[in-house]
């Protein structure tokens, strides 16, 4: 039987099926090649993407080291705080989420978007903090809407807490979030966006000691962002504690004394340089910085006319006024232009270079020796001394006692003040020095400016009979490497100045306090306080009288005690406080008394 009889000729359509099947085979081959590309050639790329999908790294913030006073009273510690964060990755509808979160947490929509935009560069799964210091009401509100808003989470963090608020704020400093700019500058290589860093004070100075190493947690997450357990975890290393030289009682007293005034108080151990108290007023509450200011609060704070953020003790520049007379006396004795017995007559004013220079005592002091001139703070006496010394020797003496350079205290931002010289005048001021200025500088006026801390150091050097000292805040027992790279305490003054000259100046200071001198307001029974007042004119008295106003002067007192075995230096500055003897000296007395009470 022939096949064709029973079967049709299908060869044509069969050849067509054959062609199509070949095309399909080729397409299949192409798919294999494409899989080769995706799975073999691009494997690394997709592997990385898959890992990024399934893991979420989060930071466990290390608690910061504590800051205590010299007697282990805690000044700065850490407490737990709740913060709300948004994980953008989990937003189903971004705009809706933001509106909801804003309403839930009562954040202005503008603030919220601004905040999130600031962290745009972070990966989507990274939580962005939108509000900290949640109260329990906020926390429960967030938890109750957990399912609706999976993008909003509550985290707990150790948060810096300053137990005594504004007390010692300028010493301890405050903390703020790192800005994107600072991160770019690589000043903080180990830190990331949103971290808090010490901005000023000890918090900044000892940042590297206080800061711990943050821990990291790697979690497996599913496509909904839910955790499926940790894969690895490195525990945070807490920062190390530091002990300050501050004495809580003295610091509190200093703060109380300045309350309502503008000024600075420094209490110092002249031997060791340990700062027992350092207060600047007006002050601020450093806790406010942790809780993230609203933009208005911040602007208000930095624009306030009395500059509460400024640490006046190390950054305020003031004419030293009569406080400078000790430097003058010591320099003049050492230069040999006067002796202790040298007498000048004060008639209330004196003429030099064709113009009158007044004494604060209009009626004049009469004839005075050096110690009497210090005791009664006679200007005319020191005008004469200044004229005999000349500006160069004045400057030399000022530098010997620490003026014109940083004291080297372990706080950031200290200013160095200015000890004027004719060279300075020519190179900086572009005018010639004129002789009358020397007379002004002789009583601590003119272009001469100093910080309150420099005044304290001047007194400490005098009290130490010439031995230099570097004021510092970190207890030397606290950390061996803690010492800052300030100038080593030089003994230049002791080497260059004969010991008896110190005794002469100190005798004048003792008289000022104990023998009805200008500093009598600081007298403490049986504590042998030696000190000197200062009242610095902001404008000349003649001008003030012409204006018909009573312009108050800055009020200074600087002294130490006891006379023969100095244990404490107290420096007080009250801006616009009036006469030093009337305002600053009584404040110093309180601190001397307290110190004496504590050390009996």
């Amino acid at each position, binding site marked *: 039987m022939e096949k064709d009889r*029973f*079967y*049709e000729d*299908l060869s*044509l*359509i*069969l050849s*067509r*099926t*054959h062609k*199509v*099947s070949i095309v*399909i*085979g080729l*397409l*299949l081959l192409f*798919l*294999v090649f*494409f*899989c*080769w590309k*995706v*799975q*073999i050639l*691009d*494997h690394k*790329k*997709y*592997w990385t*993407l*898959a*890992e990024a*999908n*399934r893991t979420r790294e989060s930071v466990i913030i290390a608690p910061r080291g504590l800051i205590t006073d010299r007697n282990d009273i805690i000044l700065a510690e850490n407490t737990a705080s709740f913060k709300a964060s948004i994980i953008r990755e989990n937003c*189903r509808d971004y705009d809706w989420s933001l509106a909801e979160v804003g309403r839930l947490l009562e954040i202005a929509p503008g603030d919220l978007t601004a905040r999130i935009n600031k962290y745009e560069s972070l990966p989507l799964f990274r939580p962005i903090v939108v509000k900290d210091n949640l109260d329990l009401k906020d926390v429960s509100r967030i938890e109750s809407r957990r399912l609706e808003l999976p993008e909003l989470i509550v985290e707990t963090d150790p948060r810096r807490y300053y137990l005594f608020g504004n007390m010692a704020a300028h010493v301890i400093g405050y903390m703020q979030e790192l800005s994107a700019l600072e991160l770019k500058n690589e000043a903080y290589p180990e830190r990331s966006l949103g971290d808090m860093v010490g901005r000023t004070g000890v918090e900044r100075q000892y940042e590297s000691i206080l800061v711990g190493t943050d821990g990291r947690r790697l979690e*497996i*997450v*599913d*496509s*909904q962002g839910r955790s*499926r357990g940790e894969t690895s975890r490195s525990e945070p290393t807490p920062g190390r504690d530091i002990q300050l030289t501050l004495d809580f009682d003295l610091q509190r007293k200093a703060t109380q004394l300045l309350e309502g005034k503008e000024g600075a108080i420094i209490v110092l151990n002249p031997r060791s340089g340990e700062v027992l108290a350092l207060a600047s007023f007006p002050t601020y509450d450093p806790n406010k910085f942790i809780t993230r200011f609203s933009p208005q609060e911040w602007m208000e704070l930095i624009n306030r006319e009395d500059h509460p953020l400024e640490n006046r003790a190390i950054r305020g520049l003031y004419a030293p006024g009569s406080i400078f007379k000790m430097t003058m006396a010591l320099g003049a004795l050492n230069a040999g232009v006067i002796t202790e017995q040298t007498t000048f007559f004060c008639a209330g004013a004196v003429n030099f270079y064709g113009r009158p220079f007044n004494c604060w005592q209009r009626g004049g002091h009469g004839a005075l020796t050096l110690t009497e001139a210090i005791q009664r703070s006679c200007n005319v006496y020191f005008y004469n001394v200044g004229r005999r010394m000349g500006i160069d020797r004045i400057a030399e003496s000022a530098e010997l006692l620490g003026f014109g350079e940083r004291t080297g205290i372990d706080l950031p931002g200290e200013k160095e003040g200015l000890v004027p010289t004719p060279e300075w005048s020519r190179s900086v001021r572009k005018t010639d020095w004129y002789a009358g200025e020397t007379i002004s500088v002789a009583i601590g006026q003119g272009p001469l400016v100093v910080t309150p801390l420099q005044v304290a150091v001047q007194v400490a050097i005098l009290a130490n009979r010439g031995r230099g000292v570097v004021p510092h805040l970190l207890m030397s027992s606290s950390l061996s490497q803690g010492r800052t790279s300030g100038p080593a305490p030089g003994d230049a003054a002791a080497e260059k100045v004969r010991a008896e000259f110190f005794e002469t100046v100190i005798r004048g200071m003792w008289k000022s306090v104990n023998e009805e001198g200008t500093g009598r307001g600081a007298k403490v029974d049986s504590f042998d306080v030696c000190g000197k007042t200062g009242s610095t004119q902001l404008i000349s008295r003649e001008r003030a009288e012409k204006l018909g106003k009573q312009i108050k002067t800055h009020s200074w007192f600087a002294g130490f005690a006891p006379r023969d075995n100095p244990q404490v230096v107290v420096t007080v500055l009250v801006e616009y406080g009036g006469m030093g003897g009337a305002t600053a000296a009584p404040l110093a007395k309180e601190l001397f008394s307290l110190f004496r009470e504590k050390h009996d």
Partner: protein
Amino acid sequence: MIDRRLIENIDWFLIGLLVLNSLLGVVVIYSASHYVPGNYHWRQLFFIGASLLALFVLLLVDYQVLMTFSLYFYGAVVFVLLMMLVFSRFISKGSWIKLRYFQIQPSELAKIAIILVLAHLFAEYKRNHVSATAVLISSGLVALPFLLVAVQPDLGTAVSFLPLLIGSLILAGLRRNAIIWILLLAFLAGIAGWNFYLKDYQKKRLATVVFPSRDPQGAGYHILQSKIAIGSGGFLGKGFARGSQSQLKFLPARHTDFVFSVIGEEFGFIGVVGVLLLYYLFLWRLFRSAGKSRDRAGVYITFMVSLMIAFQLLVNVAMVIGIFPIVGIPLPLLSYGGSSLLANYLGVGLVLNVKMRRFVNI
């Protein structure tokens, strides 16, 4: 009525490949869904059993007989599709009819009806080239269910009707010029429509109509997740049930349309090549079966069934590796789903039916 000789001529090798592929699917479905409720692997096993049974039942009836009833099948399917559209609120959800214990997808079974009706139409078509009338009739026959399914909306299934039409026209002898013209017109219409007619928001809207709930997280998310899954599998894969992309649910539709991505992730390039090789054997056997048919209708049936499965395979794989837009076309035999499985088994059943009756006298 079933002759011993017919049983002897059953292509057991093809059935073996069919079942092997399906069982492989069960393994992957287990890996992709064991951590969610639903017991999809057990259900798929049940579907395989049921489909195999249906396949054997189908063998009992001569395909010639089936073809004579093909218009009734076709009419019934079109009627059901029409009813689904009209009473969509009561009986159906998209392309599904919800029954008490399971749901069925009539559009999948429509493929079998279309294959039979087209085979019936071209059975006596002996010219070397197809006539315009035949093109119009066959196009109309496919266009009707195509539109009904496309508006369900289930573009994926609707599109998988097209290779049946084009395949049968190619067999019937589409002139080369006609092919070129058709392709050119379709291409130009697509480009013109996309660029000039549709506005951006309309494109977006169209996309969400065509691919409902497929793109909630921004364009390309699913494609990307699928590529990440396949690419991260590398050469050897991450191991059974150990792919992070599927186990942690980054991959969409893991046990259905994206089952191939799970293979790529967990069994690597080796697994992908293995599965595609198995498919190649299977398709090769199917296409070669065309030569074992006794008449023209048999060739058409075999060819269209082969093309139906090949098309779904190619489009699904191209889709999950990101070189083809996402349309809801499952991986034949491997993806979870009873209706699709049943349609493919019935298709293979038709091929076996043709093949085992090749020596029967007219």
